[in-house]
């Protein structure tokens, strides 16, 4: 009685073919008593790390290999299945590290020569492999098989096998043909041993329907139409040993064990070398790092370095050296230096980024005097965590950084990590439904109407209430298969910005394939896989606010001669004037604190210093809101509640946030000091929190947490409450280290808004799209801050928005740029600017002579850019439409202007044209026009709300510019209504919404009658009656942003 090793097995990382997760395959193979399992996805290594992680996590018991009770640990073998161009099919296995590198190289070559999702491999590609094992599935026709067998023997002598896979289907035997005897004969003739295998596509036969449906999705048809393209039975699953004994002869099963024996490669042994060119000749990485830090110290601390900071630096450098992370910091340093040379603004964030070493290396601008209050965590030795540094760059210039990395290291040594795009509820329901032949409109209907955030009712129950007949078999299949397929990978996509850079070719570590974008390559592993194996990546991310800040800095330097950097501003320490504005919620355009929810929090929390901002940013998130941390914190801050700590340890962790856990680090730290979690366990807790929604694994920590805390003398109630807070946190708990970096940018943008408003709004507008607000809303805010705004003008504007000096004494205005005009091409602007005379155009004829594209001219006319030259934009547009004068021969004919005179637009029409052409109107607001026309009256304007008493009745009218239904808010929708004086926050409860559905769902101009709710300076209107006034302005182009 021999054991068995399954050597040909596909996971769901062979997209839309495999029907089981790698973890399921590993665990099932072990449960069935197999000695080993090989994960051999088609031309891919994407699933092997998950299998490896499962192997480690499940801690599997050793497996018996023979009668005598000898046991061996269960083994995971890695390999790949390849369909060659000549029609033959082989499975390659990696017995050792070198073979693994060979296989990765072959996969890379096969994938890189084709577009994303395809591969092509020929015999010649395999000839270089000296170590890999080859398992061959012959085509069963001798003319093709014999020559191939000879080729195999020539190149893979002693490491080739014939695979016999008995799947009880029609191919097993036919008229005058028997597969088994064919293979026996072939093996004897060409001297190749035969080995048994299963062509496993799923871990158990129950998955057959799912495998069929995946095939239907892959072939884009219905499952009933597939016919013979489906497998005939469920034998492509892992089968129990007793059954295998009946199916295969002993010698062929024993052969699998012999092969497994030869495979000793362990994924955990993978390491990679960093690019050596980062370190100058003659220096070691440590020395070089130390040198750079010392240089940085003198720059960053011109007044000298305190003893405390020196000590911290020493500690940090020692830790870096011990863990061997020098290269990681050096790589990051090199990248930010490039950005600095090019004038690209950047900001590092993350726990490691907030170290003093990083401050000296200029990776961050968070002053260590501010860091002092933060946790030391930067690298946690006992948790063996890789350092965590994300670097944000200006979003409009991040591509330059990417290109630098590719150029410096070459496409073979640098690649992006992948992201696994998997089936979520919507795509799963749609895909499965289509494959089952259900009507697509009906599926859309279900999807639209299922509320994913409804906690009480799962989607299965909601489906029933939407009319899905639960008794019908199709519906039962739909529900079951959708449940199974959620979480299945569909394809790989490129990660946002995580790079791996190595000294040798990456393709020896992991296969590299083409991404969908041109000139981009990705590795087949995602960030979790990299973390499992302890491999480091450098995150190169994009942030819109950095672009805005840099533009503002440039403008300030140009106009006022003042040179500023982020560090310069933070060095000025906390400015009460800036904080005063924030406390009044004057934060439109300010990074991270400009949203409606943040603006409601600012007057309550009243940040006074940097750390308050750090808390402000982290507290207005679903995590703390759902975990019910917000109100206790505010109460304690205002002195309404006493702060007490159950122990000294807890005090040390929670004192900075008044006893309320707000940051992810606090929760982890509490688990360690109060419940006795070890470093590793705390790390597991952190991961479980991060992926709670996907895996639901938090419950298993509950017992350990509560028991551990009780053991250390804490009250059960305290422990239970903490656990509830952790669950509420879920994946939304914000790390303090990130919040600290964001707070820097928040402060800088608030500072700029206060001291240099023109430059600030200008920089912001030129960096759109980004942030929370549209150009229209930003400009209205600017006007309310007494900024003069000048419209787009053919003679004055540039492509970007500019700060312009006005003729009358020293004043300045914001001149809107051509980029705001819809339908105007960039090229058209360039042509216009090229041909614009210094003193400007003096007539329409001159402009027409520029021979710009007709559409560009129309766009400019409608934006009223010709206002200086032609009184009436309708007339200007009419004139621009005539392209008779384009032909040079006829220019003299066009000299007589059009005989037609069109009447000028009235206020309404001007407003409509403003919105249609630029989305912005400087002269009118719909609400003021409606009021002047007498269509609305008796309402309160936004600026007058503050005069009303709490709980008084009010009527407000506004354009609906925002609708938010945050999941944490129990069916409440927040409307933002904009009138001509500002924004009004309206709260619509679920019942109100349900009773007045039409107005709630479709109104673009809304009248609300309700009750004022005032809490300090925060004002809301609780909606009672909603009335849709959109019919009054049928053609207005305001776009409401829906955040759902």
């Amino acid at each position, binding site marked *: 009685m021999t054991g068995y090793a399954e050597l040909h097995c596909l996971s769901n990382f062979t997209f839309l073919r495999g029907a089981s997760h790698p973890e399921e395959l590993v665990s099932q193979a072990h449960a069935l008593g197999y000695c080993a399992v090989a994960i051999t996805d088609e031309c891919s290594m994407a699933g092997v790390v998950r299998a490896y992680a499962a192997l480690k996590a499940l801690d599997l018991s050793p497996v018996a290999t023979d009668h005598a009770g000898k046991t061996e640990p269960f083994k995971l073998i890695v390999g790949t299945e390849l369909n060659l161009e000549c029609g033959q099919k082989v499975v390659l296995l990696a017995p050792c590290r070198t073979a693994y590198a060979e296989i990765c190289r072959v996969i890379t070559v096969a994938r890189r020569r084709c577009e994303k999702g395809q591969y092509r491999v020929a015999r010649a590609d395999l000839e270089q492999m000296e170590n890999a094992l080859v398992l061959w599935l012959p085509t069963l026709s001798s003319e093709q098989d014999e020559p191939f067998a000879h080729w195999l023997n020539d190149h893979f002598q002693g490491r080739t096998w014939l695979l016999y896979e008995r799947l*009880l*289907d*029609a*191919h*097993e*035997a*036919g*008229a005058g*043909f028997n597969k088994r005897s064919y293979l026996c004969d072939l093996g004897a003739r060409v001297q190749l041993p035969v080995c048994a295998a299963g062509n496993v596509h799923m871990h158990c036969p129950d998955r*057959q*329907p799912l495998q*069929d449906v995946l095939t239907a999705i892959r072939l884009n048809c219905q*499952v*009933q139409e*597939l*016919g*013979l*393209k*489906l497998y*005939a*039975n*469920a*034998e492509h699953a892992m089968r129990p040993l007793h059954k295998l004994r009946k199916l295969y002869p002993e010698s062929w099963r024993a052969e699998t064990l012999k092969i497994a024996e030869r495979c000793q490669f362990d994924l955990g042994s993978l390491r990679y070398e960093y690019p050596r060119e980062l370190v100058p000749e003659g220096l070691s990485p440590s020395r070089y790092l130390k040198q750079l830090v010392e240089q940085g110290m003198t720059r960053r601390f011109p007044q000298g370095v305190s003893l405390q900071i020196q000590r911290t630096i020493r500690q940090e450098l020692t830790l870096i050296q011990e863990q061997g992370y020098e290269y990681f910091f050096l790589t990051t340093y090199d990248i930010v230096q490039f950005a600095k040379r090019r004038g690209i603004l950047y900001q590092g964030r993350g726990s490691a980024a907030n170290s003093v070493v990083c401050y000296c290396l200029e990776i961050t601008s968070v002053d260590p005097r501010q860091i002092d209050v933060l946790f030391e965590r930067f690298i946690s030795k006992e948790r063996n965590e890789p350092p965590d540094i994300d670097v944000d760059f200006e979003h409009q210039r991040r591509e330059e950084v990417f290109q630098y990395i590719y150029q410096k290291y070459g496409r073979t040594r640098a690649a992006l990590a992948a992201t696994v795009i998997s089936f979520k509820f919507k795509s799963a329901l749609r895909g499965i439904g289509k494959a*089952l032949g259900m009507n697509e*409109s009906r599926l*859309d*209907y279900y999807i*639209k*109407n299922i509320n994913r955030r409804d906690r009480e009712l799962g989607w299965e129950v909601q489906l029933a209430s*939407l009319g899905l007949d639960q008794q019908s*078999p*199709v519906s039962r*299949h739909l529900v079951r298969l959708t449940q199974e397929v959620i979480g299945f990978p569909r394809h790989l996509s490129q990660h946002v910005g995580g790079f791996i850079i190595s000294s040798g070719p990456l393709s020896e570590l992991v296969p590299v394939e083409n991404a969908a974008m041109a000139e981009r390559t990705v590795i087949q592993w995602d960030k979790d896989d990299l973390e499992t194996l302890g491999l480091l990546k450098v995150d190169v991310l994009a942030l819109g606010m950095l672009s805005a800040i840099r533009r503002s800095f440039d403008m300030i330097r140009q106009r006022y001669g003042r040179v500023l950097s982020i560090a310069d501003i933070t060095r000025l320490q906390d400015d009460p004037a800036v904080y005063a504005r924030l406390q009044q919620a004057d934060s439109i355009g300010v990074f991270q604190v400009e949203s409606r929810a943040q603006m409601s929090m600012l007057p309550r929390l009243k940040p006074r210093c940097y750390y308050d901002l750090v808390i402000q940013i982290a507290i207005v998130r679903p995590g703390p809101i759902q975990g019910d941390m917000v109100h206790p914190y505010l109460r304690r801050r205002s002195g309404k509640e006493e702060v007490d700590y159950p122990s000294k340890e807890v005090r040390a962790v929670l004192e900075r946030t008044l006893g309320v856990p707000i940051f992810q680090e606090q929760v982890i730290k509490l688990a360690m000091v109060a419940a006795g979690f070890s470093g590793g366990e705390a790390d597991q807790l952190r991961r479980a929190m991060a992926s709670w929604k996907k895996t639901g694994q938090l419950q298993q920590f509950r017992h350990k947490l509560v028991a551990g805390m009780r053991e250390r003398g804490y009250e059960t109630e305290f422990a239970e409450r903490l656990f509830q807070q952790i669950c509420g946190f879920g994946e939304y708990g914000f790390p303090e280290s990130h919040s600290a970096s964001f707070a820097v940018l928040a402060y800088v943008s608030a500072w700029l808004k206060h001291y240099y408003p023109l430059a600030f709004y200008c920089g912001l507008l030129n960096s759109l799209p980004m942030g929370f607000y549209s150009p229209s809303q930003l400009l209205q805010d600017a006007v309310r801050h007494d900024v003069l705004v000048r419209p787009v003008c053919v003679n004055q504007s540039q492509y970007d928005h500019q700060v312009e000096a006005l003729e009358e004494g020293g004043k300045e205005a914001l001149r809107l740029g051509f980029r705001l005009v819809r339908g105007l091409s960039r090229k058209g602007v360039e042509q216009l600017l090229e041909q614009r005379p210094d003193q400007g155009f003096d007539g329409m004829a001159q402009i027409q002579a520029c021979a710009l594209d007709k559409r560009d001219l*129309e766009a400019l006319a*409608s934006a009223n850019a010709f206002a200086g030259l032609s009184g009436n934009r*309708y007339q200007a*547009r*009419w004139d621009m*439409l*005539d392209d*008779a004068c384009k032909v040079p021969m006829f220019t003299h004919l066009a000299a007589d202007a*059009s*005989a*037609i005179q*069109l*009447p*000028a*637009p009235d206020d309404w*029409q001007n407003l409509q*044209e403003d919105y*249609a052409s630029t989305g912005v109107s400087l002269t009118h607001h719909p609400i003021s026009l409606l009021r002047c026309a007498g269509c609305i009256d008796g309402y309160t304007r936004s600026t007058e709300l503050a005069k009303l008493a709490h709980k008084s009745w009010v009527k407000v009218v506004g354009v609906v510019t925002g609708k938010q239904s945050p999941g944490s808010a129990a069916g409440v929708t927040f409307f933002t209504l904009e009138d001509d004086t500002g924004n009004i926050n309206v709260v619509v409860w679920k019942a109100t919404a349900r009773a007045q*559905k*039409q107005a709630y*769902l*479709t109104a673009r101009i809304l009248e609300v009658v309700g009750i004022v709710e005032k809490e300090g300076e925060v004002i809301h209107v609780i909606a009672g009656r909603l009335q849709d006034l959109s019919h009054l302005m049928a053609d207005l182009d305001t776009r409401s942003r829906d955040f759902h």
Partner: protein
Amino acid sequence: MRWLALVFPQLQLDSVCPVTEQVQNPDATTGAVVVIDGGQQVCQLNAQAMAAGIRPGMKLGTASALNRDVSFVQHDPGFERARALELAEICYQVSANIAFLEPDALIFEVSGMLKLYGCFKHYWRDLQQVLAAQTLHYKAALGHSPLAACVLARAGFCSVPLEQQFAQEGWLMPALDALQVGQLDITPRQQAQLERLGLSRLGHVRSLLQKSKGRKELAQRLGRELLDYLDQVLGHHIRPLDYFRPEDVFRQSILLEHELHTSQSLLFPVKNLLQHMQAYLQRRACRVQHLRLLLSGREGDTQVIALSGAEPERASEVWLSLLQLKLESVQLSAPVTAVRLEALKLLEEHVCTQDIFEPVRASSPSQLLGRLQARLGDEALKCVHLQGDHRPEHAFRYSALPKYGELKEGYADDSHYSKCSLSLRPSLLFEVPVPLSEGIRIVHGPERIQSGWWSDTPVCRDYFVARNTEQQTLWVFRDAQRHWFVHGLFA
């Protein structure tokens, strides 16, 4: 006014829920039905949907959020077009000169009909009667050009009653002037162009056109097509319409001198009809493939005999022989007093050149099939096709005989089922598997077939090739309950 336009805005919806139900309870919240187009937007809706706040142009999601129970139907322009043509045919009883304007309008040329009806009032009354039987929503308007009438009808112009519209003229220009450019049948881009010049109503455009050089400049800037369209709407120019033409059919009836009691005796009178039909077809160079014979009895009851040829034919002998065969199996339900022959679909002749040296075959395979079908009935003749399915019962299917001309082609889609030729399958498959009741010796197997879980007939069986005591080779299987059956025999 010369032209009448009828616009049917809800052709599809009206066939889903007839008008009378809607009128009965307009307040009910159930029964809301909408038609959605390809972009998942509502294009037609009934009164209940309107009451729930649903409006045209809304997305399906919004509509269903407003009313959970709304039923939706996918828009089918093909169906609407066919229905509109049907309506044209029906209206043809009342009015000649009907034209169909895509996608939902019928234009009637009124002045021609007045001679027949005397006055517009009577004409309109008759037309309304015919339409009322159809239970449809429609809007009507008159105009001095077809497009003017159509545009006014679509916009729902009704402030002047129809008869007054016909009699007077002064109301037309103001009505047209008041139309918004969005109500004209122009592209969205043209509409946007006009609106962004401040020309938001047809009246604005008309006054522009009246200015000197207005027409030229408009054409120059916005295109000749637009000018052309505007001219047609404003009546400056009327393009001739394609009038509806009812289809050609052959219908002829004869009354019999005395009642006939036997089917065979019908042959002589029908022979005459067939000869007339042959002449008619010859004149038009057409053939027919399907005929109907309607036999009326004394009491007015009618018996219908349908005849189909395998090929389109016009020769009366051919039809006669087919009829003869058919009549052998037909019983007359009552004595026949009148016979009517109908050939509803005329097919144009295929020109076939015949080589005079080619031996003339007595009858082609398709003719043989035609005769067999006539003798045995259509249902008795079938083709067999291979199907892709693992389940043996579903691996093939029967289908009706293909039409003439298709027999010759091979079944290309069967070629990739040739892999079936490798597998072991019996020559004879029992329709229903028979429980195994004798001893057998297994020769080969198992072959496991587990499929069809998505259907009513899933299969989960292990098949074996076995030999019984009489040395017959059987195809047996064991099902999930471990019962044994015989499913077929090998030759």
